[in-house]
């Protein structure tokens, strides 16, 4: 495989020289370029790079603007910020375009580890179109009613953290971006944050409010491409019910919040496919006709399914492994079901029941059997849910 090309941009020559030496050991693994300032870096971007690592505050063009330029010109590039800047205004500006964050100062091993993860996230996507969809995703579509409700709750001083978390957990766009940020070193210095409520605590309601109400990170769904076959209200309903079903299946307090979050962000895959080139309306019609499962119809049209798209974005954003795993494996269950975790099985069962495809391939019954082997109580709850 070709060595991935990594472009480092900073306004301090000393900093670049330090990086160049400390990362020298990896010169056979990566092709690295170190450039002083965004203006001089642009020609290198034009030559094509896989990963860009940039400082934020620089004289002339700042890092956020540079990343926006890179995103527009080369949407499949992984964009990482390496900054020690504590001012959140500029950070919020870069949030919409950056995949990863590295705090300055970071140790060499931490930088190497983060870059290796970024390289792995890229390698995990084989399909070029999927890569374009995932890395080029400009704004995260939010559902208009949910967005309005979250905004209203954030403006109302009487809203509790619980109420806001409940509402956010019904919008894949807001929930996944919230997790993205709360897992970045920009806000979090602790363990992976795998659920919406913890993410809100890490970020703080004030920052979250600024993000939702002020920044341009979110785009309202119906301002994006309009799909004749898909009603926004259908998507809204889906996200809420998936999240609730997952909550019902996983009652262990250690799992509930994560399960609900998996359910909430699951549909980000569908939203990504809709943004990409391809005909999602055809998928929707096929699913409605009852001849194929959603994933199968997607693979027939795009070559990949919503689960893979969601997992690819989760990997690009460095979300916790528990979420990535459930998203990545739930749709390809038939390949090797013994390796699939309970969370992925639960997600697939919920989705199939929700789509009314429980009878289509007889899969739900066998999946409930698989789940029962792993956790009898979970199996009983799934059976009860399937009977309704």
């Amino acid at each position, binding site marked *: 495989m070709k060595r991935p090309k990594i472009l480092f941009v900073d306004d301090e020559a000393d900093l670049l*020289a*330090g*990086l160049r030496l400390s990362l020298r050991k990896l010169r056979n693994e990566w092709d690295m370029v170190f450039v002083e300032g965004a203006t001089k870096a642009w020609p290198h971007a034009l030559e094509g790079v896989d990963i860009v690592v940039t400082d934020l505050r620089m*004289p002339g063009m700042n890092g956020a603007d540079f990343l926006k330029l890179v995103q527009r010109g080369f949407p499949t590039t992984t964009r990482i910020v390496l900054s020690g800047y504590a001012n959140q205004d500029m950070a919020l500006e870069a949030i919409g375009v950056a995949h990863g964050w590295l705090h300055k*100062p970071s140790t*060499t091993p931490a930088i190497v580890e983060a870059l290796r993860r970024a390289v792995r996230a890229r390698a995990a996507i084989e399909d070029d179109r999927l890569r374009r969809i995932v890395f080029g995703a400009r704004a995260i579509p939010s559902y208009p009613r949910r967005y309005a409700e979250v905004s209203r709750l954030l403006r109302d001083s009487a809203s509790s953290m619980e109420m806001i978390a409940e509402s956010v957990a019904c919008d894949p766009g807001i929930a996944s971006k919230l997790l993205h940020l709360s897992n970045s070193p920009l806000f979090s210095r602790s363990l992976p944050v795998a659920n919406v409520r913890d993410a809100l605590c890490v970020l703080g309601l004030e920052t979250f409010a600024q993000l939702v109400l002020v920044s341009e990170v979110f785009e309202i769904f119906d301002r994006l491409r309009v799909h004749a076959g898909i009603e926004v209200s259908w998507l809204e309903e889906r996200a809420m019910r998936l999240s609730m079903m997952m909550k019902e299946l996983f009652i262990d307090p250690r799992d509930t919040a994560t399960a609900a979050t998996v359910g909430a962000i699951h549909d980000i895959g569908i939203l990504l496919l809709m943004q990409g080139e391809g005909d999602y309306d055809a998928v929707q019609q096929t699913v409605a006709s009852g001849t194929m499962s959603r994933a199968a119809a997607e693979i027939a049209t795009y070559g990949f399914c919503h689960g893979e798209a969601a997992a690819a974005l989760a990997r690009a954003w460095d979300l916790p492994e528990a979420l990535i795993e459930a998203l990545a494996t739930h749709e390809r269950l038939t390949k090797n079901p013994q390796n699939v975790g309970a969370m992925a099985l639960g997600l697939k069962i919920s989705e199939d029941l929700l789509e009314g495809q429980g009878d289509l391939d007889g899969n739900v019954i066998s999946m409930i059997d698989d789940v029962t082997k792993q956790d009898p109580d979970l199996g009983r709850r799934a059976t009860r849910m399937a009977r309704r």
Partner: protein
Amino acid sequence: MNTVEPASVETLTKRLDRAQRKIAILESMIEDRTRSLFIKSAELERSKAFLERILDTMSSALIVVDGAGRVQRVNRATTALTGYGIAADAMPQLRDLLDVAPGATVEDLVAMNGDAHMRCKGGKSIPVLLSVAKLQTTEDEADGAVCIAVDMREKQRLEMELRQAQKLESIGQLAAGIAHEVNTPIQFTGDSIYFLKDAFADLCRLIDGYEGLRACAPSLEDVSARCEDLAAMREEIDVDFVVEEIPAAIARALDGVDRVATIVSAMKAFAHPGGSEKAHQDINAAIQTTLEVCRNEYKYVATVDLKLGDLPLVYCKLGDINQVLLNLIVNAAHAIEGVVASSGATGRITIATIVEGEDLVVTVSDTGGGIPDEIRERVFDPFFTTKEVGAGTGQGLAIARRIVVDGHGGTLRFESVVGEGTTFELRIPVGRTEAGA
């Protein structure tokens, strides 16, 4: 004639009646008068008590003196403030309470209106705002004076708090910038040392190889194989590169540590410049410290030109002067930022120091947009700010002016040309040996 006799009884009776009616009338009149007198006196009593209550409720000290400055009357606030008893004779003379020259007239007292200090029982001195008015009972001659003294300690405390708050605000703003300033050298120092660690391990491996070669020198057939291994290792390690880069890495690491140390000691010098009392201070050094602390505020938008003259040590409160310098430099940077925005162009901040006569003069000039005519009057007003809500409290220049004028007996002025820039001039006496405040 005996005609009088029978009538006289009747007449007498009538007279008696009249007299009795008169008495009754008189009695009722007396009663009326007594009653109205009683009411009047009660009213008088009430209004006296009312006046007393007003005097005692007053939060300001009230002292009434006669023409000779003898205390005639005080209110409760006066005793609370000074600690002396309420009775006029328990009070000392006015000159014991205030700085009044012996033989001062009422007019002299009136001239004392304004800031003053009141001496209390036990010798404590309290800052007060004094208001003296002539007390006149006849047309032409003053019988005394009414002095009202307002305790200024709370106001002074609030002013100090405001000044402290502004200092904290500016330090808070600086903190983010300082973090950024420190993060960069730490990053490249760490990276350089990480390289040195790897390079040392590599060189040790090579040395081991050479050692092995030396050890097996007697058996010659082994040597050529080992030489080949060593050449490969040398190639892999890229010894020429490593040897060339090691001194640079060491220099960079030392430079990084130096930069962090400079920033940290500047922060220390800025935040704790040694007490709040006036002392003889090096103003050029203070300017350099302040520039170091707020480097992040200007380095992306301006270069700094220093024209520092030979200065004697200046008698001042260094912490306060630092705060003034910081405000002027940060304002200059913001003015330039407003012009160059994110165009990548940079402006210039020129800081000059010079001694003119008895005065130290510091000028801070920027190449910003200048101050528009219509707001020049208000630049030093407290709470006046052109920055967006949340970006500044509008206290910076107001407090800077107070520090310079009230605290150091100096002046703070500016000249500004719209479209060209602004120059602030700070001027304080160099060798003042007594506190001005």
